[in-house]
């Protein structure tokens, strides 16, 4: 009999990560590291034009290069006939263009692939690709979303007859979850005790920029074709490859080895994955594709890119009476795997933490000749949170109410949970007061307001601005029935299996697929606690469809809130299966057994057997009860009954240099309620990284296009990720109201920082410069834009044409001319 000696509870412990040892010593398995004997390499020839007919492709010179194995156009591979999948047809009559793996007759964005070279080395493939001559007949690009929707606009896909992908509407009056927003706003227009505030906000186009460029290796030589890919979704990819290419699903194995970041950017069935597969099958040889960073910025999907028109009606004492949201969302040239649904996720989040009696959400998705957009960290929820949190500040200004006070007058109080919102979601738990109180204290809100006032009075060059964001999000995607009601093409369950090994160790096979989250550590903590075995005795297996055959992968802060619960359920089943065997071993009745700390004990005695003893007993199988199988392994699938709703209060102070427009972060405090914390170290890390990405949207990042449809941020010189020197240390903390819809009480944390931080920063920047008459500044609030906004408002701007400068951050292409700096001096 084994004595179990594990007094420490793993859940809640700041365990250092299991994953680290390999990663800090360079012992890694990135897809591009794959080296198989006979491996061939491909290079893809891409269109320099946003919109053009392909008149001809001359591959003859490329074919002559020594070491070139093949040169193929779309037709040679059948790549133009492929229809890459979109799994989220948001309406029955949604317009969806065919999305080929390589363009055949026409290219629809700059960067679209038109041919592929296969060679002994990547260098030879690239050299030969340079020799391919493509004859293009240029067409007009389609760049401006509002122009694209007008009658007579140039069509991206003439065969669709429109640039509109779909319109999706939610109206709480029609849904019965609230009143009519149109009526509420019309009534407010006429009422003396109400005001109506209308604003337009721009969500600029971003690029996820995972650090590991995408890479795919396909080996067709075995009975099962094997694809290694830098993907977040090996399971979905496997099924989609089978469906898209007509392959028997049992003949495909997908492996996501070490994956270097994703942030939504690796939720895709990428054309390059399909091309690599087609080439490998054609040649019967293993083939690798690895992108350059420029290819990645140009062709991996982008995110955000919305025009938001918001209308709020509110009583003069600060109670919101209606909210109308009208969005236009840029899909780019095609529909990605879940692209059309991304802005629709926002429909449930614009009402945020507030009690809004009447709400309407109306989103029109539009095609342009740009890189397609799809999920990027937060996916629809950062856009919604930005819209409503910017709006709360605007309403506060309009009414002369302190911005936090306005929020308090409208948010759901902690006594009111569970609370069903106007957009029909039921928030199970939360305590906005607690998170806010703690954040305000950590931030020294009153002290910073005093300092702000002093600097204003002194007329300091560096003015202080303070911004608030009180947010919630829906995560743990997702209850399958909800996804069904939204016409999503799959469910939202997750699966885990536990294999008990003869020596008492456990292998846990999970369907979620990590790319930096620390799954192996956090999940080991959960299973160690549930089975009562040591942390180091648990191995988490993931990312290979041969071992993990069932899963829906990682996105939407679901790995813990959904996948983690599947592990709990599987562990419960292991214990349930082990119980009759333990009873048999102890010659006791099952009813007299209790399982604690890894041991089945006979109540009232000191007799007991450990779970490891039972694992060995069923391995030997010499003596076990009749009628049951000698096996305590278990498999469980968890379909959540609800989303989880983390929330938090984020406070940002910035210094704005009024002479240069430079914005420096001064202080950042956030208190997030993510329910039960499994590993505080990992939670803190997720918040830090999330904050950096949300702050980067506010201050640094943008993917603008010029007037011919060329991406202006095609390198990391131009797409300006923040460096360590740009950021500060954040003060983070947690409050906790455990979720009541899952047994661990967990919520999600992967996206929280990104969703919450952007409006806090922009609200802070505006708070610093409104005193000069600045009404709004589009993101990113670069020194150029801030300087121009201040000086335009003061009437001291230079030439007056600064916003037309064709440089990143100047807003060309993604903005209507001159709209990047909006001044309404005196309006506020």
């Amino acid at each position, binding site marked *: 009999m084994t004595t179990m000696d594990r007094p420490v509870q793993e859940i809640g412990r700041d365990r250092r990560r299991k994953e680290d040892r390999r990663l*800090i*010593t360079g*012992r890694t398995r990135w897809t591009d590291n794959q080296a198989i004997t006979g491996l061939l390499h491909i290079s893809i020839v891409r269109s320099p034009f946003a919109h053009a007919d392909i008149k001809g492709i001359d591959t003859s010179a490329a074919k002559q290069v020594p070491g070139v194995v093949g040169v193929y156009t779309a037709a040679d591979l059948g790549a133009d006939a492929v229809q890459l999948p979109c799994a989220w047809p948001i309406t029955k009559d949604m317009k969806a263009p065919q999305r080929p793996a390589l363009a055949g007759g026409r290219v629809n964005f700059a960067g679209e692939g038109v041919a592929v070279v296969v060679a002994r080395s990547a*260098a030879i493939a690239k050299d030969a690709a340079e020799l391919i001559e493509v004859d293009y007949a240029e067409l007009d690009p389609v760049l401006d979303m509002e122009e694209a929707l007008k009658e007579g606009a140039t069509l991206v896909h003439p065969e669709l007859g429109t640039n509109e992908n779909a319109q999706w509407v939610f109206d709480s009056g029609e849904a019965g979850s609230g009143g009519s927003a149109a009526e509420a706003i019309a009534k407010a227009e006429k009422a003396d005790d109400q005001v109506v505030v209308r604003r337009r906000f721009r969500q600029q186009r971003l690029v996820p920029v995972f*650090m590991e460029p995408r890479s795919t290796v396909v080996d067709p030589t075995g009975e099962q074709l094997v694809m290694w890919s830098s993907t977040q979704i090996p399971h979905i990819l496997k099924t989609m490859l089978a469906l898209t290419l007509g392959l028997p699903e049992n003949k495909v194995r997908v492996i996501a080895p070490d994956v270097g970041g994703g942030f939504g950017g690796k939720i895709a069935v990428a054309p390059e994955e399909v091309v690599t597969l087609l080439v490998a099958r054609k040649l019967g040889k293993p083939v690798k594709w690895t992108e350059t*960073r420029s290819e990645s910025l140009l062709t991996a999907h982008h995110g955000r890119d919305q025009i938001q028109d918001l209308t709020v009606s509110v009583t003069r004492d600060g109670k919101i009476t209606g909210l109308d949201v009208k969005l236009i969302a840029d899909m780019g040239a095609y529909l990605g795997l879940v692209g059309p649904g991304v802005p629709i996720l926002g429909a449930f989040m614009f009402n945020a933490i507030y009690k809004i009696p009447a709400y309407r959400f109306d989103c029109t998705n539009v095609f342009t000749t740009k890189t397609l957009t799809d999920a990027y960290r937060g996916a629809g929820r950062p856009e919604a949170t930005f819209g409503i949190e910017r709006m709360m500040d605007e309403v506060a200004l309009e009414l002369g109410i302190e911005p936090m006070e306005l929020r308090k007058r409208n948010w759901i109080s902690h006594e009111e949970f569970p609370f069903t919102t106007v957009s029909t979601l039921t928030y199970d738990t939360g305590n906005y007061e607690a998170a806010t109180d703690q954040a305000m204290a950590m931030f020294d809100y009153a002290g910073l307001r005093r300092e702000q006032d002093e600097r204003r009075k002194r007329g300091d060059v560096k003015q202080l601005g303070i911004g608030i964001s009180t947010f919630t999000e829906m995560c743990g995607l997702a209850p399958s029935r909800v996804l069904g009601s939204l016409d999503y093409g799959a469910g939202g369950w997750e699966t885990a299996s536990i294999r008990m090994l003869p020596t008492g160790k456990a292998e846990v096979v999970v369907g979620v697929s990590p790319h930096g989250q620390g799954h192996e550590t956090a999940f080991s903590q959960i299973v160690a606690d549930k089975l009562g075995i040591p942390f180091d005795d648990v191995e988490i297996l993931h990312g290979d469809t041969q071992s993990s055959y069932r899963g829906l992968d990682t996105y939407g802060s679901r790995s813990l809130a959904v996948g983690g619960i599947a592990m709990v359920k599987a562990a419960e089943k292991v214990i349930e299966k082990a119980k009759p065997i333990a009873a048999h071993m102890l010659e006791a009745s099952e009813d007299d057994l209790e399982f604690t700390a890894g041991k089945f004990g006979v109540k009232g005695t000191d007799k007991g057997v450990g779970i490891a003893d039972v694992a060995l007993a069923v391995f030997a199988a010499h003596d076990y009860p009749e009628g049951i199988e000698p096996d305590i392994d278990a498999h469980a699938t968890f379909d959540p009954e609800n989303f989880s709703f983390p929330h938090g209060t984020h406070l940002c102070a910035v210094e704005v240099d009024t002479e240069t427009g430079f914005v420096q972060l001064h202080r950042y405090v956030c208190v997030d309620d993510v329910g039960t914390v499994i590993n505080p*170290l990992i939670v803190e890390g997720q918040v830090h990284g999330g904050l950096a990405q949300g702050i980067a949207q506010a201050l640094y990042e943008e993917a603008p296009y010029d007037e011919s449809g060329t991406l202006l941020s095609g390198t*990391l010189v131009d797409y300006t990720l923040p*460096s360590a020197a740009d950021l500060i*240390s954040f003060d983070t903390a947690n409050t906790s109201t455990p979720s009541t819809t899952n047994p661990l009480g967990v919520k999600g944390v992967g996206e929280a920082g990104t969703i919450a931080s952007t409006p806090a920063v922009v609200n802070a920047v505006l708070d610093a410069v409104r005193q000069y008459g600045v009404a709004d500044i589009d993101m990113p609030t670069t020194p150029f834009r801030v300087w121009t906004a201040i000086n335009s408002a003061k009437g001291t701007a230079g030439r007056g044409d600064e916003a037309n400068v064709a440089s990143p951050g100047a807003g060309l292409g993604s903005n209507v001319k001159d709209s990047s700096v909006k001044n309404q001096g005196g309006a506020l």
Partner: protein
Amino acid sequence: MARIRTTVDGLVYEDDVEPRMLLVQYLRERLGKTGTVIGCDTSNCGACTVHLDGLSVKSCSVLAVQANGSEVLTVEGLERDGQLHPVQQAFHDNHALQCGYCTPGMIMQSIDLLGDNPDPTEREVREGIEGNLCRCTGYQNIVRAVQDAAQKMKPGAHAAPQAPQSVAGGGA
């Protein structure tokens, strides 16, 4: 083809390389040193940072032929007798990595930084690693790790393993 002779992580190699081959390609494709990775094509991200004769370089902006006669140290050569370099250990202790893709370059740059400045302030660390991009961590724990390593590497500090000159030397 040009003939080069280099010492990489303590082993001597002789190879014929194309004059245009980058050091990072040589390390990955010819020597199998896949611990060093490529993150961009414009020398912005620093994921490929190694030490060349004791100084950190982005190995995407050095030709393999330029390393002829030189000593190269990659992240794979930091461990000594199974013991992690203090900077590696500090990255683990402080949760300074998530996906880990930037980590080899970040560690090599941090070691170089500590060679120049054994006791950097937060601001000095931030500026010292600004040529290395990380998308996961927001840098906060990386900064912590570098400062933690600085304390552990101080002369007389407990448990600092003897590191070779090129590891500890930085800009020396």
